[in-house]
């Protein structure tokens, strides 16, 4: 099975990095989250309800829609904050990439660890620009808002191609497909990674950060 890969690129000012990343990551996760599965007898299950929340950005003329889950929001914000810190500390020209990867776990026999097979990867390339004055910042607010709107349309277009999605799992297999750790929603298993590019365009540091609790070790 081939992994679907999509790349989005944005240029933002330093203080817009958090909100721009949150906007795009939450838009993707909105489409890749379901309600909690509630298993009943005889192998049937019901699916919980997903609520949504509008969030106005402070530094961008944009309103993002996210899944109503404070837990999920905290996880994503933490990842974005780490990415932003890495961008700031790298001393580079402010270029980096944050990736949201959806994967399935394939159980292996002992002593081998489970395999993580990605089926969809979203890469968001960020270019941080410095602006000289308030007037430029005001223009940037609006332009970045428009750009994010275009990216949301791109994301929706890809999702609505209805290409590969993992099959609905049985109760015993649900943790191989979905992240069941949250109490209110159930996204597909995902991980967020990032890398910072130096001024030469090469990847200096590749920081892998696993945000999923269940990494099985030998």
């Amino acid at each position: 099975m081939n992994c679907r890969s999509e790349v989005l690129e944005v240029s933002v000012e330093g203080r817009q990095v958090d909100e721009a990343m949150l906007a795009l990551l939450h838009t993707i996760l909105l489409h890749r989250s379901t309600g909690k599965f509630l298993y009943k007898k005889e192998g049937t299950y019901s699916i919980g309800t997903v609520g949504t929340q509008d969030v106005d950005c402070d530094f961008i003329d944009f309103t993002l829609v996210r899944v109503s889950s404070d837990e999920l929001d905290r996880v994503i914000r933490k990842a974005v904050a780490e990415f932003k810190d890495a961008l700031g500390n790298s001393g580079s020209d402010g270029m980096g990439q944050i990736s949201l990867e959806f994967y399935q776990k394939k159980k292996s026999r002992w002593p081998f660890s489970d395999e993580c097979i990605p089926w969809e990867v979203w890469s968001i390339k960020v270019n941080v620009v410095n602006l000289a004055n308030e007037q430029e910042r005001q223009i940037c607010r609006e332009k970045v808002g428009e750009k994010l709107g275009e990216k949301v349309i791109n994301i929706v277009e890809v999702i609505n191609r209805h290409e590969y999605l993992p099959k609905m799992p049985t109760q015993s297999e649900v943790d191989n497909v979905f992240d069941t750790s949250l109490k209110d929603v159930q996204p597909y298993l995902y991980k967020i990674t990032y890398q910072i590019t130096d001024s030469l365009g090469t990847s200096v540091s590749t920081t892998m950060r696993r945000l999923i609790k269940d990494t099985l070790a030998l």
Partner: protein
Amino acid sequence: MDSDLSPQDKKDLDKFIKFFALKTVQVIVQARLGEKINTCSSSSPTGSDWFNLAIKDIPEVTHEAKKALAGQLPGIGRSMCVEISLKTSEGDSMELETWCLEMNEKCDKDIKVSYTVYNRLSLLLKSLLAITRVTPAYKLSRKQGHDYVILYRIYFGDVQLTGLGEGFQTVRVGIVGTPIGTITLSCAYRTNLALMSSRYALHLPVCKCWAINCFELHNHNLYATCVCCFDLTEVAKYVSLPNQMVVPGKEGGVPQVPAQPTHGTAAEHGRIPSCPTGQSPQPAPPTSCSSEVKTVSPSDALETTFTRKVGAFVNKATTQVTTTSLDLPFAAFAPRAYDLQENDPMVHPPPSPAPSSPLQGSLHSNTSSHSGGLPQDDFVMVDFKPAFSKDDLLPMDLGTFYKEFQNPPQLASLSIDVSVQSMAEDLDSLPEKLAIYEKNIDEFDAFVDTLQ
């Protein structure tokens, strides 16, 4: 050709399409109410949470949608449309976007209705939630209030996009294949919303006196001359950007958030029009759905009316300025009407070789020195409107008075020749005057007593 579809599947599919249509309308209308939407996730579903999404049902909206559908379902040749328009407090209206739920003939026979179609419709609703916050009408709807409101209209039948003006854009939200056809959801939105299509970089006047004499427009940049030194200073620089939207009168700030604004606007504006012909099964285009809604002909340039803003303590201007939106920055500063221009001494100065006022003369010399020999007809002379003055065009209003009497002639008594002459006369007549005053001394004393 749905003979392959089992009766149960057909029944389920019809139900899914019906509720999908109703939820689509709810999402669109709620996204245009002007407030942020917030619903809760729940691990235990309730019966009304169609498509596993928490989308509230506003009863009036459901009622309007059901009325438009009139027991039918969106199908091939029968589209359900939600039209969003803007209506100003002056009664002018403009269509902003049209959301279309359509079906084409491309069938997917193998798809599982109760599972795949249902989940894909859920995905499509999530996409709709995201896209409704991205089209230009969203920002306008968040700022609605005193100056304008956002209205919706649901109709069934043929899609009408002519009211969106020239150059409208279309965004496809998504498609879902079903055994009886492919459902498509899209939005066509107006792009020439710009009432002022430019942006201006403002500069503070250089001179500290802050007293502006008059404004001049040259090459879309605005200049002002100062009273004390007549320096020509750039006040605003034209920086054009595409597709900026500035609605007259509303410059951000906290928007008004009525609890049920669509209900309120229905009451206030008579009725949110819904298509009367939607009830007929023929796909005839709805005609007189709304007499209140003015549609802009695509061939006309967009005309806008806005009220001139006035300073504090100034009587509200009763006249309105109408201008085309086609790139006349600061149109409000241009002469308002041709007949006024003819009589305006500032635009057509008297033909005497000397300038009609010292002020105008120095202005012209100033402009030639500062602007490096630019042709005079590029400048648009604007009436000086001092603060705290009445905004009626009296022949001798404050501005004209100020200009004319800015350099008054010297007092005769202050001229040297005259003063010398009168001094001599005064000295000669002094003894005479003193004699008179002594004679009337009683009168003077009595006067002084009355003052005490």
